[in-house]
């Protein structure tokens, strides 16, 4: 056989054995639990996953973090395999995952959060701002405020809803418009965490973000009143007055509840169930609290009847709003 044919066969041989090695290796590996989660859950989930891996030595948790909507679409549109999905706004799951065909059958809220503004020493009027005068300072000329895109990201539309509620709460007509004037399109990104470096570099003075991020990044933040910061499920009715106009239509304010679900068709349902149980249980809740999230005791869930038996007892049905 001449050299060329030998070379060609050799190349094929290399390709084949390489792929076999890869697949073979996968068959010998421990179980991999794939989680898609919102970016703001990165830190707490890493801690929960560490605990989980200790408790289940033959399981490796591989988590990806990004915008909640992006993560959902990776499953629905890009058909990527995941066992669990955790989002920053519980509405994302029914909106994207309950379609035809359904990618999930239920969801459970496991943590709360609040919208706030973070800032640094370099920020304008940093020495002056407090929980009472914040909306006046943020409306001042020359203040640069960053936020995420309301059309694509939960914290984006939650920020605007909060401002809309603030207008009613303080009885200050035009508050929303004045503050948003300092947060033009050029200060917007698709997720709020992209703007943290801009804040630290002094490009923006204030960033609309979650309270948990403020604590995790050790940034100064403003304690906004519970009636406007979307943190309290008991205020759900009040929150509905906060309206944001997006390209997807008008959205009414809802409490910020982080929700998790098991993705239909996953091959690791048993392992996934255990992870959710850990998350909803006392250890998971402690991790969330330590990272600046609000607790959820007990967890609320929607479509409890569709949940695995082991999880049903950990949740209560979501109260009707």
């Amino acid at each position: 056989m001449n050299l060329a044919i030998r070379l060609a066969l050799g190349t094929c041989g290399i390709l084949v054995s390489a792929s076999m090695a890869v697949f073979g290796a996968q068959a010998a590996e421990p179980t991999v639990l794939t989680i898609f989660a919102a970016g703001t859950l990165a830190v707490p989930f890493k801690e929960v996953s560490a605990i989980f891996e200790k408790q289940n030595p033959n399981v490796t948790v591989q988590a990806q973090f990004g915008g909640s909507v992006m993560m959902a679409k990776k499953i629905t549109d890009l058909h990527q395999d995941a066992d669990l999905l955790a989002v920053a706004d519980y509405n994302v799951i029914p909106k994207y995952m309950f379609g035809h065909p359904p990618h999930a059958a239920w969801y459970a809220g496991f943590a709360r959060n609040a919208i706030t503004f973070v800032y640094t020493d370099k920020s304008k009027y940093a020495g002056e701002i407090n929980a009472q005068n914040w909306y006046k300072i943020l409306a001042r000329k020359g203040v640069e405020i960053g936020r995420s895109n309301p059309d694509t990201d939960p914290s984006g539309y939650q920020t605007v809803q909060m401002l809309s509620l603030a207008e009613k709460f303080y009885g200050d007509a035009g508050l929303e418009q004045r503050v948003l004037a300092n947060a033009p399109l050029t200060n917007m990104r698709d997720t709020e965490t992209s703007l943290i470096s801009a804040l630290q570099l002094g490009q923006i003075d204030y960033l609309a973000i979650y309270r948990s991020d403020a604590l995790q990044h050790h940034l100064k933040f403003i304690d906004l009143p519970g009636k406007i910061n979307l943190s309290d499920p008991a205020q759900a009715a009040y929150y509905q007055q906060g309206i944001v106009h997006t390209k997807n239509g008008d959205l009414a304010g809802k409490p910020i509840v982080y929700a998790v679900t098991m993705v239909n068709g996953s091959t690791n349902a048993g392992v996934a169930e255990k992870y959710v149980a850990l998350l909803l249980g006392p250890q998971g809740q402690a991790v969330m609290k330590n990272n600046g999230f609000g607790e959820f005791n007990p967890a609320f869930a929607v479509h409890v009847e569709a949940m695995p038996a082991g999880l049903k007892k950990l949740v209560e049905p979501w109260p009707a709003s």
Partner: protein
Amino acid sequence: MLQRPAKRWDRRAPSQSRGLYLLCWFLGTILVAFLVVPLIALALSQSGQSLASVARMGDVRDAIALSLEGAFLSAAIAALMGVPLAYGLARTTFPGKSVVAALVDLPLAVPHTVAGIALLMVLGRQGVLGAPLQALVGLKFWGTLAGIVAAMLFVSAPYTVNAARMGFEAVDPRLEKIARTLGLGPWRTFARITLPLARRSIMTGVTLTYARSISEFGAVVILAYYPMTAPVKIYELFLRFGLDQAAGASVLLLAVSLALFLILRTLSRGTPRRENR
């Protein structure tokens, strides 16, 4: 080996190795297929109607136009500043030259987000260059075309510099010396002898810079989300709608880019023989 009678298709010269030839074809075809099939699949996923509807969206057209405009400026600046740099690297020696050459290549290895943050650090509102530029000339890089061009230029300038440098190195320095003895000063020599002989390589480099600038996302999006370049817009469409819309806008961008590159290639070819080998 038995002598085989020469077939009609077997017209190769006696020394042309069939084996080597076939191997080149085999491996080459695999690579080309790897590059082209995904793009064809993308293009075929769109019907004429869906493409037309995407083309009708004003913000998509604006995004593509912005990408082309920014990439053009980026390529122009790369040419203006990169070509002289390349000439210096090709013709002169100075202490630290290899360091400079390596630094020119560095942006290619920097993760795009990191590049964007580094640029923001320097060109932002409180940046060491950004602050004075904003104060003195009103030039802002945050959320502006200038910022987009800065990000594009950072990641794509090395292509122009490297290609131009190779082009200049291929020009026989003795031709330049002869031109000088014929009475042409250094500037005229550069313009009428060196540059024309290196033109093809330079054009290749500039085209690569242009292409790379169009596709840049990670560094651009740190500096500017609005106004939206095409890659940012495509990502936004994906988040808001879904794969179909994003794919449609992508195909539109690809079609426009392809047309542009063909035009650029035709322009850079010029008249035959007017180049060195």
